[in-house]
């Protein structure tokens, strides 16, 4: 009996040791990258690091952020990769991130790196707001294309505009915070008051306005450029318009969750996330990436998007988020009876 158990123990120990040699580290990565990109990103990463397996947990920005905050005392994620920078600032202010300077971080545009040293998060690529304009439906309704945000106040657009609800959509919040930053707080709210008159309804998600514009359900969808380019490539009669005043933007960023058991693998992943190889990988879909010199133009992306990006104060946006959303809700949510 005794010998058997001893043998078993040895066998078990040997087995554990053996797996240790070949074992791949598994990383739980929370992300809001587009669903269709996940496999490609993981494959590219595994070309260089076959020993680290990525387990994606993907959902929209709001949901992933909510999940991370809900799990604050019992984090399930090792790494966050591809989440809005404003969300990472929220995580940082809850002390949930492990500061780390990835190899090659110097090459990044300083805008894409957290201000602390070592940085708590690093950015990968940027996505910006834009207007999706359905040329066929617009013509039917006798509309002319808007060139600026202010143009959307024109009464001819009444009932022809859809935008995301900032309370549930990151894109919606990006628009609202950019208007407040560009026009100033008071003028920003005035602007939204006027815009509200023309809005048909607010959607929960940020990509829906553009998809609705693509399918002609509404002529004008306030959404983001990436989505518009995709729909245009799919054959929708869309024009992606960059308003002349400038557009709000956010980054897809990454960071290490404090207390992860796989710190080394997490750091490897973050090193990769800012590497040249990774930048080329993001560049397939996104025109603006962390190392600007590497960026190649992306088809169907509107010209001049990069120059239209406003000076976005992420910290201001994160710290005023709760107050802005409450104000927005009291002004436009619920009060607006559907027409």
């Amino acid at each position, binding site marked *: 009996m005794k010998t058997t158990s001893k043998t078993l123990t040895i066998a078990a120990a040997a087995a554990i040791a053996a797996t240790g040699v070949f074992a791949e580290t598994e990383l739980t990565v929370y992300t809001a990258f587009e669903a269709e990109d996940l496999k490609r990103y993981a494959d590219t990463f595994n070309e260089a690091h076959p020993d680290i397996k990525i387990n994606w947990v993907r959902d929209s920005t709001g949901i992933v952020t909510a999940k991370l905050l809900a799990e604050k005392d019992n984090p399930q994620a090792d790494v966050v990769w591809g989440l809005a920078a404003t969300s990472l600032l929220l995580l940082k202010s809850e002390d949930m991130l492990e500061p780390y300077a990835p190899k090659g971080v110097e090459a990044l545009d300083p805008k894409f790196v957290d201000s602390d040293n070592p940085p708590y998060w690093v950015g990968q690529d940027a996505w910006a707001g834009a207007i999706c304009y359905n040329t066929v439906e617009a013509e039917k309704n006798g509309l002319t294309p808007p060139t600026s945000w202010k143009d959307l106040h024109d009464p001819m657009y009444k009932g022809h505009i859809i935008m995301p609800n900032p309370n*549930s959509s990151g894109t919606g919040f990006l628009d609202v915070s950019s208007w407040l930053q560009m026009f100033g707080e008071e003028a920003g709210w005035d602007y939204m008051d006027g815009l509200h008159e023309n809005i048909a309804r607010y959607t929960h998600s940020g990509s829906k306005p553009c998809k609705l514009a693509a399918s002609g359900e509404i002529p004008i969808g306030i959404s983001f450029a990436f989505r518009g380019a995709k729909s245009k490539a799919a054959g929708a009669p869309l024009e992606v318009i960059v308003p002349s005043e400038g557009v709000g933007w956010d980054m897809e960023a990454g960071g290490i969750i404090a207390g992860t058991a796989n710190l080394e693998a997490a750091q490897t992943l973050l090193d990769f996330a800012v590497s040249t190889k990774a930048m080329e990988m993001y560049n397939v879909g996104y025109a603006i990436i962390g190392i600007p010199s590497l960026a190649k133009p992306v088809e169907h992306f509107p010209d001049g998007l990069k120059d239209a990006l406003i000076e976005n104060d992420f910290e201001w946006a994160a710290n005023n988020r709760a107050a802005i959303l409450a104000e927005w809700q009291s002004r436009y949510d619920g009060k607006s009876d559907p027409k």
Partner: protein
Amino acid sequence: MTDAATLPPGRDVKPRLSRDDVMMRSWMIVIALYLVVTLVFPLYAMLSKSFSTYHFDLGQFEFQVSDDDGVFATDPVLASTLNDQLGVFGEADLRAGSDGRLPATKLFPDFSFRSSKMYRVRGTSDEAVYLVGSTRHSGTAWQELDSNTFRRVQMRPVSGTGFGNFVTYFSTPALSNSIKNSLVISTIATVLTVTLAFGFAYALNRSCLRFKGAFRIIAMAPILVPSLLPGIALVYLFGNQGMLKELLMGQSIYGPIGILIGSVFFTFPHAFLILSTALAISDARLYEAADSLKTSPWKTFWTVTIPGARYGIISATFVVFNLVITDFGLPKVIGGQFNVLAVDIYKQVIGQQNFEMGAVVSVVLLIPAVFAFAIDRIVQRRQVAQLSARSVPYEPKPQKGRDRVAMIYCSVIGVFIIGLLAICQYAALIKFWPYDLSLSLNNYQFDLMDGGGWGSYFNSIKLGLLTAIVGTGVVFFGAYLVEKANGFEMGRGFFQMVAMLPMAVPGMVLGLAYIFFFNNPANPLNAIYGTMAILVVCTVTHFYTVSHLTAVTALKQMDREFESVSASLKQPTMKLFRRVTVPVCLPALLDISIYLFVNAMTTVSAVVFLYSPKTALASIAVLNMDDAGDIAPAAAMGMMIFYTNAAARIIHLLVSRGLLTRTQAWRFR
């Protein structure tokens, strides 16, 4: 009893508990505990969350300001003292959510970030938390900051308990308006559905309409799809690119109109089933009497038919009301700017990460739901047998005019139901609505869309099967114990009560309650969070009541003599349960399983908070694809659910038939 007085005083005589009794009671306790852990504890966790508040405690922050040369000459001052002097923040400003932030500079009216003054800030206790930019600081050590950095100081709230969340809720019209919206829309939808379903049930039971079987099947079809699906169909019919847009005469389908039409669709089968049962039993003698008294048919209808079906009508009313007010999928898809309570919970939790406010809305939604449920239960209890042994069942006689009207009426409803389903199927096959109407299967490439891909469809089937197997087992065994155990009145009463509870709890509320209870690291059951197990547990609990009632009804038909006989033959109860009870009740068991399967396939509300990326579900995929604007794939997935459920029903029918002829031959002696 009269002898009792003459008996000598002493202890009450109690029968000794047999091993069987002990075992049955322990199992009953186990199942009751299951219900307590999966329902009562989570609801309690949710209730306490709704009272967990956040507020800014200004007494916890202390500041010191230097003069223009950076010398700190004045004494430190508490934020609360500054606020008392200036009155910048009112009571409402100090109530916060968990992500609340209060800028410190507001307490310094002459603050300028260009000034050369220096600022010091600290907490007066270790709990005080403040941010400098987005870096978190806590504790009582002084931080010295220049004015440009000081403007980045944000105070964070502390947690407490109280009614603060409820006060905020009721003083925010954007939120509390939803109560009115929910009540109004549910009332109108209830009146509409019950009226329409009554007409349908009346036509099927009281006329000589042809194709009754087919109409019955059509009327039940909406039960097989998630409530989101009619919403999607309505977008294709009445949206801005809708085929029948003109019919709305400029009104938007996104809003109350859409919710109303969709609600009629998805609650119709529930109302129809109850009303059909109520109208099926009626006493022909009453109609004969009315006839011989020369009462007009109109008067007969109001004095005989309606009173005869009154319990059915009341029950249908509250069931429909409850379904509409707790439904989340439909208003989410088609509600537009019309806010209702169930969607508010989702918006608070998923959109704003405000779990406390989500809990508050849940509590608010729980009130009408429990109320409607309670009334329904009271009415059901008062429903006594209307058919006495002497009753003569009413048999409608052919009557050309009436039958033709019935035919037209039922056809209109039938076209409405089939039409909405057909439009979804059509939309799913169109390449790019409305610009490219060629047919394609592109919309079935779920793996390229949000929502979990084809995996979510197979997850749903897995969930359906697991729920059906586990649920039927637990529910039936529980019902058996509570029905057939000896004595233990108190325990059995408690069990019955707990088994009724799930029906009163809206899915959204249950799902949110599960987050609070199971996602707590201190909970030993935390491990099931994010797995298929929690989805199964949640779904079984969500649909426990109806299953339990079905089982109890079947068991009531079995004489308790079986237990006595088996006891006198010294056979263990479990053997009796296995060899006699289960085979005899097989039809009921199959009914429970199909009920659980279909509901597991279509449910959205409870599981929307609980699925993880590995356990994404088809019904959730419909929601998420619609949310992302992929409406055609959402319709495609919705129809996959429909076909799966329809197939399950057909299999259920065939299996039931086969089993009935093999095991239930005794019924047809």
